[in-house]
């Protein structure tokens, strides 16, 4: 029986999420025994033409050519999985969405007329149907293996959707907000990293993107209580998942509930 075929595609990105697959050093050759890696330019010059059973897509759409190319990839793929913040939420390059791309181009390039780019950086799902989204900047290696395994056996991937706070508790981290008044996006950020930043005595900076229904007011109140001003709160949500609608909303809500009613009590020391 023919092995299922896997293709890996890159759009506007840093390559970190593709690299995560190659970082599964103990599992890579085993994966290669069970799937035919038919297209993966970071790893091989051999390319088989489609269709493909599974396509992993990294990167966001920032050019007209890429907007066309993702449509072709979708047509050739039975299952399309987006991996990482660029593909799922526009990436850090989505910061152009809040600015003037022509001005950006002229800052970086002496001949902006040689450059052709779209005004926005958009996630893959804004262009084609996506069968599964794996968040992270970068994605977590174990979660990637879970997704690949699940697809191979035909079940839904077990990827929790709760916030980083749950992972902090599981890991036994001291809460950096409560104990130290450190700003943290954990309450509104999608789990997946294992609460890595609080484990290193810093606040979560949201690289796995938003949870589904974050409480914008409460989070803004928490951040203001730790000493952040409005501009800081906005910047906090405009990083690697800048085009995620929930983070866009969070970046626009910069004041929380009045004192005495919630998170602003936390860092009252």
């Amino acid at each position, binding site marked *: 029986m023919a092995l299922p075929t896997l293709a890996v595609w890159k759009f506007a990105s840093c390559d970190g999420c593709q690299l995560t697959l190659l970082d599964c050093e103990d599992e890579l*050759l085993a994966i290669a025994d069970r799937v035919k890696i038919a297209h993966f330019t970071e790893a091989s*010059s051999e390319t088989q033409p489609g269709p493909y059973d599974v396509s992993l897509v990294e990167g966001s759409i920032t050019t007209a050519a890429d907007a066309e190319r993702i449509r072709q990839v979708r047509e050739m793929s039975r299952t399309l999985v987006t991996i990482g913040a660029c593909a799922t939420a526009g990436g850090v390059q989505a910061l*152009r969405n809040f600015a003037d791309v022509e001005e950006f181009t002229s800052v*970086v390039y002496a001949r902006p007329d040689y450059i052709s780019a779209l005004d926005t950086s958009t996630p893959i799902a804004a262009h084609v149907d996506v069968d599964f989204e794996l968040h992270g900047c970068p994605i977590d290696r174990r979660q990637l293996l879970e997704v690949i395994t699940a697809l191979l056996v035909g079940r839904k991937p077990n990827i929790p959707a709760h916030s980083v706070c749950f992972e902090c508790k599981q890991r036994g981290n001291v809460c950096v907000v409560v104990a130290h008044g450190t700003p943290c996006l954990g309450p509104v950020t999608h789990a997946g*990293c294992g609460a890595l930043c609080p484990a290193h005595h810093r606040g979560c900076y949201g690289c796995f993107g938003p949870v589904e229904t974050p409480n914008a007011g409460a989070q803004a109140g928490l951040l203001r209580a730790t000493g952040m001003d409005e501009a800081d709160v906005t910047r906090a949500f405009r990083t690697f998942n800048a085009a995620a609608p929930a983070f866009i909303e969070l970046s626009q809500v910069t004041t929380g509930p009045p004192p005495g009613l919630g998170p602003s009590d936390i860092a009252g020391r």
Partner: protein
Amino acid sequence: MHVRVRAGAVEDVRLEIYEPPRFFEAFLRGRRHTEPPDITARICGICPVAYQMSACLAIEAACGIEVSDGVADLRRLLYCGEWIESHALHIYLLHAPDFLGYASALDLARDGRGLVERGLALKKAGNAIMELVGGRAIHPVNVRVGGFYRAPARTEMAALAEKLRVALDLALDTVAWAAGFEFPDFQHDHEMVALVTPGQYAIDRGTVASTGGLSFTPAEFEDYVIEEQVPHSTALHARLAGRGRYLTGPTARYTLSSQWLSPVARQAADAAGLGAECRNPFRSILVRAVEVVYAVDEALRLIERYEPPAPCYLEVPPRAGVGHGATEAPRGVLFHRYAIDAEGLITSARIVPPTSQNQASIEDDLRRFVADRLDLDDQQLTHQCEQAIRNYDPCISCSTHFLDLTVDRA
């Protein structure tokens, strides 16, 4: 890649690199002075530490802060991890298959599984350093302007050292293996540029030096290096003011600093037949393999004398001004410059990656390389040109597996 041939001779070679532009230098404006390490890491998933380190040096320079020796050593250790990971990735997954006639390491694994497993184990050792010191191998979370959020404990370092002792043997085997490859006879005469720190192989800091006798500080970088845009590439081309194209990266580092390799790395280089300098781009795989030996050896030395720095970071209050930083990314000199206002917001940013500095030299080498191979058909020529480009480990290595070659023969 476009090649124009007229009257049986190569008239022009253009390497069209079209990575969609992301505009980092533009959107860094208005960010806080503490943000460049996290943000610029996202320029590259394979060498994020390089970006974090150059960013930290530049911001700290602007704010008048110099980190302690303990923090500097921990940064150097982290950087060793990235050199090991990046070079092992390139050697085993991207470059060696070319020399052995395979389309990929996965194909190579069918005939020599142990070889590929060795490369993956070496890469894993590099990642282990980055995971311990940086918190995460891709886009480390533990790096901050002023130092680290958390310093690893000595017991954690001891466990890491165990893995690195095994890795040293794998690294030495890698040099010996690569020394047996067949290398086309090809030499270049480009000026080579790298950081130097006399007495030690430069990684995390240094003065910029060249084989043509230049010597300047990172603060003078923009006086000596001129970046130009060309119509056929979104990667800017660089040249030395008044001099022309140049090459940075492992062969430049080796040529300028090989006398400061550690004894075990020096021996490996000698046994592999590397002399005092390396001007054959095909032999860069040997130089990378020697640098892996050096990086593992250096990491072990740093761990041996490790004491958790206390404090593990300094506060870096913002100060209006400009700061410059340059470090040796796996692929060569990586330069950052930031201007900051009194509130600590960035007003301008300039980032010069190694791969764009090498563009002009790569095109020149390809022009000469193709000139001797015009009798090949386009498919064979494409394959050989892909291999030739991989010599430079350009940070678009993946796209060199996807080379569209057009030959315009009049």
